[in-house]
């Protein structure tokens, strides 16, 4: 059950209340004071008016955005309703790395006044969900205890950098002169001219029930938990997303931790709170506790008198420390309750819900597959086992489960399960699967809706124990991020100058600066910076041969941009990187982008759809996303839709996406892209020229950074040589590294300066660039050399560059006789030929052709003759 009844599947209709209170002729706007939101199938309308705190539909259904309504206006046509807001943020919306700035655990209901000028404060009026209560709490004061869970507290102000004390004046909507008198202080909030929220709540929950009944789309798999089902997430997508989150890694969990308020508190806190609320409740409503009530609900499969309220309420009571709170009394309460009471109950379910949400993610796949019914059964089994095992505790259990039968006692066991080892967990899992059969039976008998509900209500008890045991049992996490085991002995640090130089010259070492790319750096920096500041989108194409520092420069740009974002010179942005070579299929690009953006997993098609939605839908508080696409050419597909989308998204009005693409060829857009793709890529291009020898020299010098290991001449030789060949900085660094090794070896023999000199560099260059063919021919056996000679002789005779083995073999035998060797037979000849073919000195056809296989030389004839002559 969602905390806020947000995503009703049904349509909400928005209507202005009363006449426009003002008009702006220039902008052709008409201002209104309040708006009523009516939901299909509901009699009372919810009304929101200026100055009121409202909820705005957002990405996260659990936590819709919170804001204060400042203005409401419609444009000329009168169709589009726009709301001007003052935003509030929840802790979970604050960037993860900034959360610790708060210096304490946030109160679960705490929100922060959001102060950020770059943030868009206009939203579509039709995203408003309803009103919410906010109380201002002075900084020194503690958070009020015992208040309804729906009231949010504001204490501090979040200005994207730090938390500050909130000036109560800020809470008053100052921008709107036509707004009603400010009403921000805690006590005053109640006096707001809002419809009684509890009334609204009830109305909405009524709709909810009906909604869930009528929505046939809630397939049993989708409605794996009431948690997600009852939220009635508008799109299937969202439920899928949630499911995928459920199976995704620890990040998700971390995120959830922050969303679920109770998580951050110690267990006692939670219990205390729960108890508090409970006692309060029992005091106020004076309900009698009838222990049998709950059993009837959890077992009953008929949908008759199960309404939403009933099946939800057990959830709240399932926390282990409130055993006596049964669904039955809830049920009674639900009927007897005054509207305000209802609200309490809604608030009361909160902690349990949070736990439930969390538990879902800790479940193993079996659990997701198995229904909760089986879990309860299994829990029962486990509990009975535990009873047997723990004789010591037998008394207590007996006491607690007194007056309740099997179905109930499982919710008490949890506290004991802590004592159990992980083996119990495994057993549970086993039982889970065993019980699936039973579950199926149950499914068959009950109607789908009712089973769903019972399942959920029954699920909770099983959940609670697992929550307790989770920290104790080191279960292999399903999606633990893999890592290479760490070393037993620490890596040795470089010992001498040469080793130090080698470490610095390794391509992987990140240099302090990127010399020789200042201009390119500046250009890219300006491009990205301007886009980030303007909040617009754009594409840039960067080309250059391998090893010219394209990726490194872009990374450097991003790094310095992020730095200035930290210092708040520019707005914050997200950086995402994908590489065409690091995916198996161009369409995986979507998957990777989505995963890096939102941590969701999806199929390529689904991911494309989600991204499309994300980049085209207007959303408040959107950060600019900077996307680096490395090795762009590999994203080519026949239809080029991957490229098309990548370049099309930035052009959307609300996308706020900057795409930087990198590839090797300068004319890639002209060569492989069809017009509509190339046109969207635009003309912002940059090409990285291969390094000149001076630049290469500078690069090495700056990398070495005063580590004196090379002679000047040696450096110059390397850089000139590499610049002449490719201008690839990687090559240059590799050669230098090899030269230091050679120097180290020779250094031990003769007493040289200890610096890398010309001779060492020459040797390294030789090793890396000299063709190995000549030495291979020189080291070949006599017959192999003769065969090569025969090949050339035959080529000369034929005047062609190709001959069959038979022809060459005749020549070969003749040559053998000339050399005074015993002529080889055909088998030997073929062996020799194949051996030359395997080193690719010769190019051969398949050996099946035997005598008629055709032979070509893979080396020039001159090289062969030169190699043979020097012998």
């Amino acid at each position, binding site marked *: 059950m969602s905390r806020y009844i947000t995503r009703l599947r049904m349509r909400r209709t928005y209507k202005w209340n009363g006449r426009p209170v003002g008009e702006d002729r220039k902008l052709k706007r008409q201002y209104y004071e309040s708006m009523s939101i009516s939901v299909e199938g509901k009699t009372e309308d919810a009304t929101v008016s200026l100055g009121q705190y409202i909820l705005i539909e957002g990405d996260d259904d659990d936590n819709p955005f919170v804001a204060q309504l400042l203005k409401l206006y419609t444009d000329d046509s009168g169709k589009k309703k726009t709301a001007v807001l003052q935003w509030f943020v929840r802790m979970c919306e604050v960037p993860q790395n900034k959360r610790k700035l708060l210096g304490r655990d946030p109160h679960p209901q705490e929100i922060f006044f959001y102060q950020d000028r770059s943030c868009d404060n206009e939203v579509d009026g039709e995203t408003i969900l309803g009103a919410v209560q906010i109380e201002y709490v002075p900084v020194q004061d503690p958070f009020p205890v015992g208040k309804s869970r729906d009231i949010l507290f504001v204490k501090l102000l979040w200005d994207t950098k730090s938390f500050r004390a909130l000036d109560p004046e800020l809470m008053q909507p100052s921008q709107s002169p036509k707004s009603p008198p400010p009403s921000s202080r805690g006590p005053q909030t109640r006096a707001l001219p809002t419809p009684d929220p509890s009334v609204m709540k009830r109305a909405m929950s009524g709709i909810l029930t009906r909604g869930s009944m009528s929505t046939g789309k809630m397939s049993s798999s989708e409605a794996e938990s009431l948690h997600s089902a009852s939220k009635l997430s508008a799109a299937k997508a969202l439920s899928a997303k949630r499911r995928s989150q459920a199976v995704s890694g620890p990040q998700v969990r971390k995120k959830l931790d922050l969303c679920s308020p109770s998580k951050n508190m110690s267990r006692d806190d939670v219990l205390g709170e729960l108890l508090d609320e409970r006692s309060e409740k029992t005091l106020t409503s004076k309900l009698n506790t009838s222990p049998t009530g709950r059993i009837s609900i959890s077992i009953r499969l008929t949908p008759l008198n199960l309404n939403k309220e009933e099946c939800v309420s057990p959830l709240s009571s399932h926390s282990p420390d409130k055993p006596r709170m049964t669904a039955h009394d809830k049920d009674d309460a639900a009927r007897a309750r005054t509207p305000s009471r209802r609200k309490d109950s809604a608030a009361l379910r909160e902690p349990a819900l949070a736990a439930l949400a969390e538990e879902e993610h800790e479940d193993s796949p079996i659990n997701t597959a198995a229904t909760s019914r089986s879990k309860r059964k299994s829990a029962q089994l486990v509990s009975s086992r535990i009873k047997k095992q723990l004789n010591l505790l037998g008394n207590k259990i007996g006491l607690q489960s007194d007056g309740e039968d099997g179905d109930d006692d499982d919710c008490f066991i949890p506290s004991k399960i802590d004592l159990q080892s992980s083996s119990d967990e495994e057993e549970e899992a086993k039982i889970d699967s065993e019980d699936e059969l039973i579950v199926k039976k149950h499914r068959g008998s009950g109607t789908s809706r009712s089973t769903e509900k019972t399942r959920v209500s029954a699920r909770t008890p099983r959940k609670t124990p697992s929550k307790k045991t989770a920290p104790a049992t080191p279960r292999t996490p399903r999606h633990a991020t893999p890592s290479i*085991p*760490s070393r*037993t002995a620490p890596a040795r640090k470089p010992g001498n100058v040469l080793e130090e130089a080698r470490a610095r010259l390794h391509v*992987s070492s990140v240099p302090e600066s990127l010399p020789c790319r200042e201009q390119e750096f500046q250009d890219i920096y300006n491009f990205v910076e301007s886009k980030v500041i303007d909040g617009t989108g754009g594409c840039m194409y960067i080309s250059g041969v391998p090893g010219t520092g394209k990726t490194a420069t872009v990374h450097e740009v991003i790094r310095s941009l992020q730095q200035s974002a930290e210092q708040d010179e520019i707005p914050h942005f997200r950086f995402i990187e994908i590489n065409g*070579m*690091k995916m198996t299929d161009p369409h995986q690009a979507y998957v990777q982008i989505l995963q890096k953006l939102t941590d969701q997993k999806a199929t390529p098609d689904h991911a494309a759809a989600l991204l499309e939605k994300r980049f085209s839908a207007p959303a408040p508080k959107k950060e600019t996303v900077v996307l680096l696409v490395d090795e762009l050419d590999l994203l080519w597909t026949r239809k080029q839709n991957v490229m098309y989308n990548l370049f099309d998204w930035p052009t959307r009005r609300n996308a706020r996406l900057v795409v930087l693409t990198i590839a090797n060829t300068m004319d890639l857009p002209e060569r492989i892209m069809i017009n509509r793709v190339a046109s969207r890529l635009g003309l912002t291009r940059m090409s990285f020229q291969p390094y000149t020898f001076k630049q290469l020299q500078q690069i090495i010098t700056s990398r070495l950074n005063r580590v004196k290991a090379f002679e000047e001449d040696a450096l110059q030789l390397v850089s000139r040589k590499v610049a002449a060949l490719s201008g690839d900085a990687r090559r240059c660094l590799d050669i230098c590294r090899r030269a230091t090794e050679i120097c180290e070896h020779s250094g031990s023999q003769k007493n040289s300066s200890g610096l890398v000199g010309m001779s060492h560099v020459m040797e390294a260059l030789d090793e890396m660039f000299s063709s190995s063919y000549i030495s291979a021919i020189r080291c070949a056996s006599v017959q192999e050399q003769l065969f090569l000679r025969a090949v050339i002789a035959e080529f000369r005779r034929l005047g062609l560059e190709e001959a069959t083995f*038979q022809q060459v073999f005749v020549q070969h035998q003749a040559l053998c006789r000339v050399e005074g060797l015993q002529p080889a037979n*055909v*088998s030997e000849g073929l062996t020799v030929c194949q051996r030359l073919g395997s080193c690719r000195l010769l190019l051969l056809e398949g050996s099946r052709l035997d005598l008629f296989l055709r032979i070509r030389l893979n080396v020039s004839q001159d090289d062969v003759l030169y190699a043979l002559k020097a012998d």
Partner: protein
Amino acid sequence: MWTPEIRHVASRKYAGQWREITGPAPVKMSKRRSAALTGAQGISLAQKLLRERLCHQKLPDQPVGLDSQYKYLLELLRRTAVHGESNSVLIVGPRGSGKTMLLGCVLRELMSLKEAQKNVLLVELNGLLQTDDKIALKEITRQLHLENVVGDKVFGSFAENLAFLLEALKKGDKSSSRPVLFVLDEFDLFAHHKNQTLLYNLLDVSQSAQTPVAVLGLTCRLDVLELLEKRVKSRFSHRQIHLFSSLSFAQYLDVVRAQLSLPPDFPDPKFSDEWNHSVTKLCEDKTVEEILRRNFNGSKDFRSLHSLLFLAVSRVSVSHSTLREADLIEAWRLISVDSKANVLHGLSILELCLIIAMKHLNDTYDGEPFNFQMVHNEFKKFIQRKSHSIHKFEKPVVMKAFEHLLQLELVRPVDSGVCKVQREYQLMRLMLEHGQVMEALQKYPQCPTDVKQWALSAFG
């Protein structure tokens, strides 16, 4: 006194036992018997030792003639293991030049280093086994024992797999994670994988600040770098270790001697002295030297030498307990025999006559293809004019003989695709060299002289 037969049985029996004991057998028997037994045991022990050596079952103590390469590679891998420096290197050399042996020796030494021993992870891939990146990735994951991280969940897609591995490698860093050595045997085959994704990623890891890796490629192709895509090539460090043997024949002979000699710690010193002495003598023998030289001329690699010596060593038995030149000559004969000559020896006279007719046709028409009809005519001419010993054969019989040759693939149709032509007129080629036919005729048992003369005559 034992009869030779009994001794033989005994030797076999003890040879079996010997394998289990492996150490020198305790001599508890009477003097006479123990002397006889040690002789037999000595032979089988010597044979076992030499076979192990010649069949590459055991790494040699030191790679022969590859000292500089050995040092280079060891130093490189040591740096990866100890300093966590990423590297990539290719070991290039013709087949049988000892690439795997070199790597094996280096790894053995590396693992004996205390610093490296428990710090290194080894992943071995072979281009012939991991024929595409998907299989290769699975294999890497398996060898790195990463699959237990995901529990029993079977990997979904190739894409997930790749992302998984890259994430794993990315999470490590130079100083704290264990270096991974990737050995890619038949490296050139990996270059044929789609987009060279695996190579790009491995080499990219080796060039960036992630988990330290050493990528070792083994290949016999000299042009392997040209196979790499430019981005992949740029990420490769261009270190190549070439294994070309520059042995002279004298060194080669030394190697032969060393390979055949028994080690000084051989349990029976008397036998080993005798054996080593015979080996030295053998190497000085003129015919043996000639055989070895021919082998050396054919190829310098040790694999062909080993197969030759293996055959020779296998011929040693109790009756002659030392290696004699006859053994080597016989081994050479077996090895160097032309593969088709044996087939020719098994042919009938008629088939042989057909081969000769084809040879004449080849001579007359300068290697142009022929058909059965032409061969038959040529054969008939021979029967009519010159033959005294061979009677006339019916055409179907000749046809049958021709088809037999076709089956043996001594004759092959020029264009196998076309079957429309009648069998008699299908164009064929002879898959034999001129010399092969003549040689086979010389050695053919009881070949009629007129057939021989016909073969020798210039034109049919």
